[in-house]
């Protein structure tokens, strides 16, 4: 896509972000509202060197993407709630096998089928805790069309950089909303590290200093064995020594935990020493931003803290600004998910929770009013 300014949807922006990142493989199973992304990929993918594969289900969609990634592709898939639930086993597999792969999720209402065409933020804890075992993923929460582009690019880059599954958790509103999006002249693209030594000397799961091992590509003679079983640095399965498991899983988590400062992103909008702080992400953050403007226009010191990365969670940064505030309002389109992360760093008595369980607009005035702020 030519650089420039467009009036387009979040789905389009995510598709452009993927292509700008050099994505070459996209697999999906239709589900609303993520099918919009598939529609864009079908339209723009092939001529830009990307193969689109309609899988038989979401399990296969992510499985194929992981396979494609090992065959050298930059691979991704898109889905929504129920499909995301089906993918969890393979998220866990991708984490264990250190496979770079990107998932774009158009969050809708659950549990179960819920309201399929309505937005919500009900999958955000599932991104981290949905699969079995300890692992770390990188999760972005875009709040406008521009971020659908920017954060999709980042998701690809981080997936490649740290060899983890990276996710873009967009709510359905952000996927469908059309507004201005700028495709920049140049996009920074990160590619996975390749082995620097010949196959005879190569140990496929031996990490470098940054805790990330270089990744060979199938068919290049490295004869790597990829397994979801606990494996040593040579890639040989080890099922009897719990310390090998301890060490491996610790590294898988540590490569993100120890580098969280390089990954964490957030926006603070408003005063640096706010009296009232609103915590919001994704679509509800748009209303929250408006609420901050409203409060400040009435002479109140107020700020919005908006995590762009839900995982790793910007807890330190939130704590620092929240310490100054008298009141912290958490806004979510669910019955309290990221709220619990806020409560880990902000005393409960300061926190009020403003929520709708589903796609019910929360106007700016309502956030302030329900949050107990009088202007």
């Amino acid at each position, binding site marked *: 896509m030519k650089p420039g300014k467009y009036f387009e949807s979040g789905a389009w922006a995510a598709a452009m972000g993927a292509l700008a990142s050099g994505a070459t493989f996209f697999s999906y199973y239709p589900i609303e509202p993520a099918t919009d992304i598939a529609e864009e990929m079908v339209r723009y993918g092939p001529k830009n060197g990307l193969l689109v594969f309609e899988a038989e289900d979401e399990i296969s969609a992510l499985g194929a993407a992981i396979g494609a990634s090992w065959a050298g592709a930059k691979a991704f898939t898109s889905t929504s709630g129920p499909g995301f639930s089906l993918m969890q086993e393979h998220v866990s597999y991708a984490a264990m096998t250190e496979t770079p792969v990107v998932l774009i999720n158009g969050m809708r209402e659950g549990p179960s089928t819920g309201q399929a*065409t309505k937005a919500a933020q009900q999958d955000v804890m599932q991104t981290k805790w949905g699969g079995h075992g300890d692992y770390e993923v990188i999760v972005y929460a875009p709040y406008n069309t521009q971020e659908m582009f920017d954060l999709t690019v980042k998701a690809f880059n981080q997936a490649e950089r740290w060899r983890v599954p990276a996710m873009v958790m967009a709510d359905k*509103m952000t996927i469908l*909303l059309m*507004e201005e999006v700028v495709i920049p002249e140049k996009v920074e693209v990160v590619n996975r590290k390749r082995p620097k030594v010949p196959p005879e000397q190569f140990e496929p799961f031996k990490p470098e200093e940054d805790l990330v091992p270089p990744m060979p590509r199938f068919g290049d003679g490295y004869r790597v064995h990829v397994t979801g079983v606990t494996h040593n640095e040579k890639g040989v399965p080890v099922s009897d020594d719990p310390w090998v498991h301890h060490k491996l899983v610790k590294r898988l988590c540590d490569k993100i935990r120890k580098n969280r400062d390089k990954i964490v992103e957030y926006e603070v909008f408003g005063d640096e020493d706010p009296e009232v702080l609103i915590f919001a992400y994704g679509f509800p953050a748009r209303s929250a931003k408006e609420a901050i403007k409203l409060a400040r226009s009435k002479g109140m010191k107020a700020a919005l803290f908006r995590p762009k990365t839900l995982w790793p969670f910007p807890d330190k940064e939130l704590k620092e600004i929240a310490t100054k505030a008298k009141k912290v309002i958490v806004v979510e389109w669910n019955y309290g998910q990221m709220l619990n992360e806020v409560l880990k760093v902000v005393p409960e008595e300061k926190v009020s929770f403003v929520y709708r369980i589903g796609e019910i607009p929360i*106007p700016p005035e309502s956030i302030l009013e329900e949050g107990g702020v009088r202007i």
Partner: protein
Amino acid sequence: MKVDVRITGIGGQGILTMAKILGSALVREGKYATLIQNFDTFISGGESTADMRVSDQPIEYPVFEKADITVFMAKKTYPRYINKVKEGGIVVINSDVIDEEPKGNFTVIKVPASSIARKLGNVRASNMVMLGALVAKLSLANPEVIKELIREKFKDKADLNIKAFEEGMKIGRGI
């Protein structure tokens, strides 16, 4: 400047196309617009509504309940949205399909969009007629930019659509 425009009709009438062209024109002119699509299902014949907020400032919150300008393309969504017109707002109706006389504290603009489009050769171009009337009457966007966008969007079918847009503009100016 902040105007809330609602375009409503049924799937297949080109509600989204119309809204997207308008939004693209605004963005190209350096203004700001947001577009929220609401639809029952993807099936043609279901309700289709585009809620657009238009402004000369960046828009944070794109949701609104009552619109300043509401465009009705079909009867089906009329009862639902006629009560969501702002006091002193504007109602634009496709007078070929809506035979009721909208009553309330608002201005009514009638555009026989379907019959004009049919005369031009394709009833499906009625959305462009409506867009022309809307743009001419309310000076929402630069008509030349819109024509440019119609040409980009419809390519070899652009001529009919541009003609429909121009016919709509004539009506808009005349009202």
